[in-house]
């Protein structure tokens, strides 16, 4: 079976950004006018450790094609240790997701500081490209949730 390649494919991407570093990094990308795809939508959380695996599962279930979580660099967490928990949780979750068919490329963790607007935009570019090449997520989508 060959998968039909749809030129018009616009991925749905959810980005969880911690308030102190990555959300601020995204703000800096904005004020420096460093563009990235409009397919990325950001949800602000206090810390990357607030990201419950449940949120990520829900996003895939609702038809997201990729989910990225951004936090402060390891060691620079505003709450000292939050991103270490997040890192461990995500490593486990992502390998489990991969196991059930949501490829590793659809999930990503990136550390972006408040001063790294360029890195934020660059990361989003890469991630959108990756998801676009992977195509639509069909593995976890709950069709009952489709509009």
């Amino acid at each position: 079976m060959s998968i039909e390649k749809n030129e018009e494919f616009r991925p749905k991407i959810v980005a969880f950004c911690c308030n102190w570093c990555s959300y601020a990094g995204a703000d800096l990308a904005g004020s420096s006018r460093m563009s990235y795809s409009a397919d990325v939508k950001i949800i602000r959380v206090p810390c990357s450790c607030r990201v419950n695996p449940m949120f990520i599962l829900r996003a895939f279930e609702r038809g997201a094609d990729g989910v990225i979580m951004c936090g402060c660099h390891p060691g620079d967490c505003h709450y000292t240790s939050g991103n270490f928990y997040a890192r461990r949780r995500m490593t486990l979750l992502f390998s489990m997701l991969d196991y059930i068919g949501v490829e590793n490329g659809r999930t990503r963790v990136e550390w972006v500081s408040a001063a790294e607007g360029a890195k934020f935009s660059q990361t989003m570019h890469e991630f959108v490209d990756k998801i676009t090449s992977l195509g639509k997520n069909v593995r976890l989508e709950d069709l009952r949730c489709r509009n």
Partner: protein
Amino acid sequence: MQRIGVFVCHCGTNIAGTVDVKKVVEMAAHEPGVVHAEDYAYMCSEAGQEKIHKAIKEKKLTGLVVCSCSPRMHETTFRNAAEKAGLNPYMVEIANIREHCSWIHKDMEEATEKAVILMRAAVAKVNLDAPLKPGESKVTKRALVIGGGIAGIQTALDIAEAGYPVDIVEKTPSIGGRMSQLDKTFPTLDCSSCILTPKMGEVNAHPLINIYTYSEVESVAGFVGDFTVEIRKKARSVDMNKCTGCGLCQEKCPSKKSLSEFNRGLSTRSAIYTPFAQAVPNVPVIDRDACIKFKTGKCGICSKVCQAGAIDYDQKDEIITEKYGAIVVATGFDMIKLDRYDEYAYSQSKDVITSLELERIMNAAGPTGGHLERLSDGKAPKEIVFIQCVGSRCADDRGKSYCSKICCMYTAKHAMLIRDKYPDTNVTVFYIDVRTPGKNFDEFYRRAVEDYGVNYIKGQVGKVIPQPNGKLLVQGADLIDSKQILKEADMVVLAAAIEPNEGVRKIATMLTASIDTNNFLTEAHAKLRPVESPTAGIFLSGVCQGPKDIPETVSQAGAAAVKAIGLLAKDKLLTNPCTAHSDELLCNGCSQCANVCPYGAITYEDKEVNDHGIRETRRIAVVNDALCQGCGACTVTCPSGAMDLQGFSNRQILAEVDAICR
């Protein structure tokens, strides 16, 4: 059901230029709970806030969504506006359609579509918002300044003058910082120690200032208004209270071969030493690595000669624990290491020096007694070449991408001072650009060129080659005359880039203050909050925030002091009400949450609960609101889903996810 008002800001054309704001308003009207939607040119203005006020009153709104700039910009503005109209300030959500949308997208249709989605997510979140009430916390009326350079000194003086006690923690044996190493200072050429020493004396004598030298911050706990800091006072081996500062010990100490840090390794010092004559405090320390008594157990001369009986070989490091309301970071800078710039022969020739080494050589208290001479043979140099931007404005990762800002000016200063004192010495400066923005700065540079005949060549130096005759062959390019230049010099001075002092990353981590890739501390807002860290209660002073000269450092130091005073002057602070709470009926008292809480905010209590008619006593997690900082770690760890975070609840975030993926 909430009654939500959606307010879409144009931000002039910043938003309206790329986002069809009318469309966003139109779409908002269809969202659940939305009973009012309007747009306005500047929502944050008086008139914009007036509109919000009016709508809250007239439409009896219970929640607001403002589609505007980042919440980091105006969340507080809109919360205050809501509160004024009698609405709980935490019933406000911001859809960031500027930084995260209009500013980064060009296509109107695409940007509008995204703005609508962001608006929907915010509406979904407000629908689940509940009124929150901030708690109160106390403010400890004492400030800590980390770093005793001119920045730290000035900040401490200003805070103390306002009537608040200040502690300075300085790593080295004396306060003073880099400025104490400088000879003369641009743009007026007054002597550095003549203007610094009185200030050092003033801090030392100030009844509200306490100086911990030879000390470092060991740990920081707590939060704005209530930090608990451990300070390690390293063993000085000299009793501060007994020592009279006579200096006899330093004279008699037989171990005299240690390199003087103060003179940048260009001279030696004894094992027991004060870094420089005007050191504050004027109490020596014993360098235990160099001291014969510590190495072999023999000697003890200093103790014998000390009339005051101040020498104490058994002194131990002391940990002092103190509470502070505000912390100012003033850890300053160092010059970069030059091992990656071997082409300038810095490690091969003693006559290739850095500008800071030149400051010491020109200084009367320096290694050569203030005589300009070659370190290799002690001869007076007749031909000196300065190379600017060594490691600054560097495109590759050998050096720093930024401009070190001070080098153009201090090089002009050095050139001028040399030409003034040694008129028969030729001075050539290789530069990429000469940057002189600052009061009387360009005039200063022009004096160097016009009045002192300094030869400025626009171009870079490719190589410095030490010659058998002891001279240095400088190979460079003159970009204006587009020709190669070969120059034999007696001395080459490198204006090396500056970088934040090592150890600042450790400090930033302890303070959870953000830091950029170059290790400069990040300000809360590059333009509007330049002396505050994004972490509340932490302020930035001096070069630790970015390269600057003394006048700029002093102004910033004053500004940081004012911000700290503003905090210390408050009796109470409102705490963030977005804290965690555990559901009594769901919690099974498993203790997992307490293990991940970085603030020790969670304890367990035996509580009587009524679970569907069954009354029993259960062990239940209880969060202390005053300690919880709202990170959310516990909420994800909780296996029974009992722990949730107010303001960022599971249901709210899921609703946002749903809205985005709709």
